[in-house]
């Protein structure tokens, strides 16, 4: 007996197997536990929903797996590609919804038993469209949105004698105001000339078109909206109106702290970032307005999805949980009030909270502006090469701004690069 065991052990393969077994994590039985993977600050929204959930399902525990933004999406990509460690409910940022919609890894919520179509009219229209694939599959439910807004320093504008209506009347007025602000205060108008391009390419997107590609993967980057966007960005750079700093860099944050950047076009959530950590000392100096030139654009937003490979037994519960977060007026408003997560659920829009003044914005009732924008934003189709296309356009814009490349040539080069990639 002892000799037999010894003989078996003497085989290296066995030894490796045994050691592997010892290393393998113990597989816990998932007994009525619903796993929700989320990133800040929505992980807090999920945690805040637990008491309400417990009232409905006292026996189902919610386990929140929280990771930082980039880590979260890397982990979700890995989980989907390997079908391992999948959560029952997955939060996704809008940029990843389009990408993940291409794969078959997420449940199509337009079908039974989910039938999200029946609830469609309850959401801000563009948000649900963002999660709808070309074939009509809905892979995620919107929970919060980022209506685009122009934040500006009222004190710097006043010093330059720029009226508050002047700055966002048109793009030309925006640049003219910038020149006055620069002359009077020395402050840059915006962080990077790229920011203006990012918005102007969104103006006038036709139905059936995405930003860079249309429904048939035809490349759209030589269209007038790109020409206009590049021209405006070049005008900004030639007049030295941009600080040449990229969003989220240290210099960018420093620019807001020191008041050397007078405006920022971003999602409504930006006001909370400025107030919470970027430049709390500038409280009362900022105001919000609609984007210049009648533009309405979405910046960010997050969604909840159910991975197809998740435990089948938990899927009905996962769907109920998603409904609790996204379709419950109380939960949506609580997320708005505590985490500045602008609700995607239309029935919250009549809440008096929208009319409260925001101290950081000098008592302005800015949520009314954002609510108006949210209703006007139209959906833009997504394409699997959008991230690549953005990089191509950014690089060609760099060449125009930093190396004096001709705009028509730059856009033609971008077109050529993207056509090579479009059907890959």
């Amino acid at each position, binding site marked *: 007996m*002892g000799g037999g*065991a010894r003989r078996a052990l003497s085989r290296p393969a066995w030894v*490796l197997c045994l*050691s592997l077994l010892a290393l393998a994590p113990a597989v816990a039985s998932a007994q009525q536990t619903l796993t929700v993977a989320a990133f800040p600050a929505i992980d807090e929204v999920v945690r805040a929903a637990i008491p309400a959930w417990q009232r409905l399902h006292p026996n189902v525990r919610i386990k929140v797996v929280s990771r930082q933004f980039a880590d979260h999406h*890397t982990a979700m990509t890995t989980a989907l590609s390997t079908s391992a460690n999948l959560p029952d409910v997955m939060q996704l940022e809008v940029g990843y919804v389009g990408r993940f919609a291409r794969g078959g890894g997420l449940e199509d919520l337009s079908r039974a038993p989910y039938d999200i179509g029946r609830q469609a009219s309850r959401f801000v229209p563009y948000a649900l469209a963002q999660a709808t694939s070309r074939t009509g599959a809905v892979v995620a439910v919107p929970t919060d949105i980022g209506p685009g807004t122009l934040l500006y320093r009222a004190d710097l504008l006043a010093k330059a004698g720029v009226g508050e209506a002047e700055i966002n009347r048109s793009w030309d007025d925006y640049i003219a105001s910038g020149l006055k602000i620069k002359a009077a205060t020395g402050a840059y108008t915006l962080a990077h000339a790229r920011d203006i391009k990012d918005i102007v390419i969104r103006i006038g997107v036709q139905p059936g078109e995405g930003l860079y590609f249309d429904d048939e993967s035809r490349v759209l980057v030589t269209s007038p909206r790109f020409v206009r966007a590049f021209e405006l960005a070049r005008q900004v750079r030639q007049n030295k109106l941009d600080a040449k700093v990229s969003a*989220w860099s240290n210099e960018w944050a420093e620019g807001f702290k020191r008041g050397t950047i007078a405006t920022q076009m971003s999602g409504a959530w930006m006001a909370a970032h400025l107030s919470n950590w970027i430049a709390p000392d500038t409280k009362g100096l900022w105001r919000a307005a609609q984007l210049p030139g009648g533009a309405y654009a979405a910046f960010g937003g997050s969604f909840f999805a159910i991975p197809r490979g998740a435990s089948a037994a938990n899927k009905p519960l996962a769907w109920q949980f998603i409904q609790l977060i996204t379709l419950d007026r109380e939960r949506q408003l609580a997320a708005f009030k505590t985490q500045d997560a602008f609700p995607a659920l239309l029935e919250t829009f009549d809440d008096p909270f929208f009319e409260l003044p925001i101290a950081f914005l000098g008592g302005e009732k800015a949520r009314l502006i954002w609510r108006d924008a949210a209703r006007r934003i139209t959906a833009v189709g997504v394409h699997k090469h959008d991230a690549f296309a953005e990089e191509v356009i950014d690089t060609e814009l760099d060449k125009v701004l*930093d190396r004096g490349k001709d705009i028509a040539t730059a856009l033609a080069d971008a077109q050529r690069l993207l056509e090579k990639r479009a059907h890959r």
Partner: protein
Amino acid sequence: MKTPPALRLSPESTPYVLLSPFLILFAVFGVFPLAFSLYLAFQTWEPTSGFGAMQFVGLDNYAFALQDEWFWKSLKNTAWLALASGVPQHLVAIPLAYFIHSSFKRLRNGVVGAYFMPYITSTVAIAILFSSLFSTDYGLINVGLNVLSQVPLLGALLPADPVDWLNDPDRIKPAIAVLVFWRFVGFNVVLYLAALQTIPKDLYEAATMDGAGRLQQFFYITLPGLKPMIFFGVTLSIIGGLQLFEEPFILTGGRGGSDQSGMTTAIYLYRMAFDFNDFGAASAMSWLLFILVAVLTWLTNRAFRPRGPGA
């Protein structure tokens, strides 16, 4: 206490059991990713659809990579950075090691330690530190340049406006090269110091007796004696230079800089996979990069190969 015979390891299996922790970790974190990336390089794959979505495409990914102008652009950037940061490392490290070797006695370890510090410090921490040093409006480097520009005569040679190190496509490469040079010069100094200690002292004594000066000793004794270590050091610089990733990645905010001027091949293939979702092409590019590293290493080996008396 006696171990029951059933649990006792046989002499034949003992080495495997003792080796297994390494072998398992190596298999999981070394062999498997290598094999998987080789496999991926011949597939097209939408990763979020799971493993089942892979499709064999033969050499398509390689053909795509070789026709991709950004791949070539990234190779050019990488070559520029490898040369601009690699060559000075050795040109400075060899004389510096010689100087430390011959001039420092008691302070030697402290001096070497100071030069070695950047190498053992976290790359990310260093890159973040340098990005604030290079900052256009708030960085110490521009503050220093500004102070120097007040000096008469010298001031005329320096730029009047703050230099935009990290956003100007022509400045970002030198900025990255400076950081990489600073980080690895100490490592090379340590390599060369070790090699210097193996050169027999009597060679120098004999040379002194024959009337050779310090410079002659350096060129006829030290340099030939260092040759094997130069080969080793240059090989490491080639491999490290071609795989350059963290320093430019952090300095350019993960994008590669304006006009992708700081986008090395490693950054490009990372973005290809994780930003642009094309794992197949990214894997193909990484194998092309590997082939390039292997060829260059082989060429270096040829260049440094000891030649027979006739050659």
